[in-house]
């Protein structure tokens, strides 16, 4: 284990959040640090390739219980940003399509719908309405 350089008073009150790097990416971790940066300095120390410790040093006085709360909140926040990354990965394609449709001048509601609407009588007609509507002549 590497001995990190000390970055501040080694015995200032602080919390340490343990982060599983297999679940939380660097990006997600940075986002959590971003939100906590108002009240804490966040120092990330990679313990190894799977685990990082994030040292949260409060900018103003904080009690032990407040530090415990902050540690839990930080861990939850990091996990939530990891979740958001997954959601984005799964939905970015359809989101782009959605926004393209939303802001196009036309193209929304121009697609033919799925399935059939005809009843059995209509189905038996070779030139029935459904067939004509599905192949509009423009």
């Amino acid at each position, binding site marked *: 284990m590497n001995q990190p350089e000390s970055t501040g008073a080694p015995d200032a009150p602080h919390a340490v959040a343990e982060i599983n790097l297999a679940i939380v990416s660097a990006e997600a971790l940075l986002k959590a640090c971003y939100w906590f940066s108002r009240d804490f300095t966040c120092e990330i120390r990679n313990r190894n390739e799977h685990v990082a410790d994030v040292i949260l040093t409060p900018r103003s006085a904080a009690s032990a219980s407040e530090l415990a709360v902050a540690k839990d909140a930080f861990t939850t926040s990091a996990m939530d940003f990891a*979740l958001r990354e997954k959601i984005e990965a*799964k939905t970015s394609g359809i989101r782009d399509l959605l926004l393209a449709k*939303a802001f196009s001048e036309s193209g929304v509601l121009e697609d033919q719908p799925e399935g059939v609407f005809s009843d059995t009588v209509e189905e038996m007609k070779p030139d029935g309405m459904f067939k004509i509507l599905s192949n509009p002549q423009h």
Partner: protein
Amino acid sequence: MARVFYPLERFAPAPAGFHLLPFRFTRLHGKELLVNEAGEFLFVPTGTVQSLTDEHLDTNTELYRDLKAKHFVYDDSSSPLLDILATKVRTKFDHMSGGTKLHIFVVTLRCEHSCDYCQVSRQTATRGEFDMSTATADRAIDMMMDSPAHAVTLEIQGGEPLLAFDVIQYIIPRAKKLAFEKGKDLDIVVCTNLACVTDDILKYFRDEGVRVSTSLDGPAFLHNKNRPRPGHNSYEKAIEGIERSRAMLGMESVAALMTTTAASLDYAAEIVDEYVRREFHSIFLRPISPYGFAIKTHHRTGYEMERFLDFYKQGLAHILKVNRGGYRIAEVYTQILLAKILTPHGTRYVDMQSPAGEAWSVLVYNYDGDVYASDESRMLAEMSDWTFRLGNVHKDTRRTLFTGEPALQMFHASCNQSLAGCSDCAFQSYCAADPVYHHATQGDMYGHRPTSGFCARNMGVIKGLFSIIEENDRETMRILWSWVTGETAIKEVVECV
């Protein structure tokens, strides 16, 4: 052919798998709050987001059906109806169509008040030097009517615009004529402290169909403290002005706005009671904007955003209590946010839009012809910061205003969809971007969210509103909905000091 009936399973088989539609989430009150791309929300049990992401959610549950109906998931058993969702997303941005609708004309910088929070330099009362010239007025009117919007609002401000009444009388008929020629609807409002209003001025406003918006910061001691003037009688003048205006123009044509200062923060209920006493049916608990003299005199008017949030919550609680007692009065900031949260629509209020309302929704024409992206942008110019000066009516066209460097730089930072901190935020659909605010308070148009007063304020209010929504008290929700639908009158919100 005999027709047969089929059971539910044939039409609603529990699907084997499902797909996610885009959404954002946060944790609130022991639950998870999901918000879809069209700004529709759903409270779900903690752990739902994880099971959605892992695709472990049981599809044979009411929860799954709720998620599907609210466009958080879709599956192969039916269409995702993407076009419908796209239409809903578009509806949220309907306010943008048609171009700039609010056009603020600063007809003079002269004013006889010396309010601490004033966003305009105090000038002496000599006419001319700081008044809008006829040439500038002509060009500004042309620029306004060049907007593609079918309906435009002409808002006349100052300083104290009534000190330049002749300029107002020059502008109004010309604006009306051009509006008529172009087939546009024109709404005219004058923002004035009413201290020097006369019957002749009021008759003119009545005949021209002009609305009036004035300042009422609260009961006398507070109003006078906030708004010093020679004679120390701003409150008495304001009340007298309100009564005279109402008599001449009608109740619906006179609106009042308050400004919150450090002095106001302990008197939420008293301020509301003053508005009730004066028979107003809307009140806007808005925070002081950190511009102009406000930044210079910060030690007198500055306060933590937390204190404002307390003030707002106390104010809202008191307003709801007043409503329950039978007097209808709406709180405008709440109404704006609730409209975004609860209805399919966005908002026309320029300070709570994304893309930000600066330039897209509002343009300010200063007395000297300079065009600014917002009132606050003009305030910065008073302190020699011209970041948001888009151009000048004598040199620019609407096209060059919108394609010039200041505008383009600002547009880059105008969408909260792409700002750090906002892009993931569950409240993105309800919140806004404000590059001018962040530039003024943090030195950076993009802003630093964790220390942003804009973020703290909006997030605090939105979270509080979701508490109320979740509680779902029947009477409270009925009152709030009456604000949203406009049954309890909300006048078109104007930005006046």
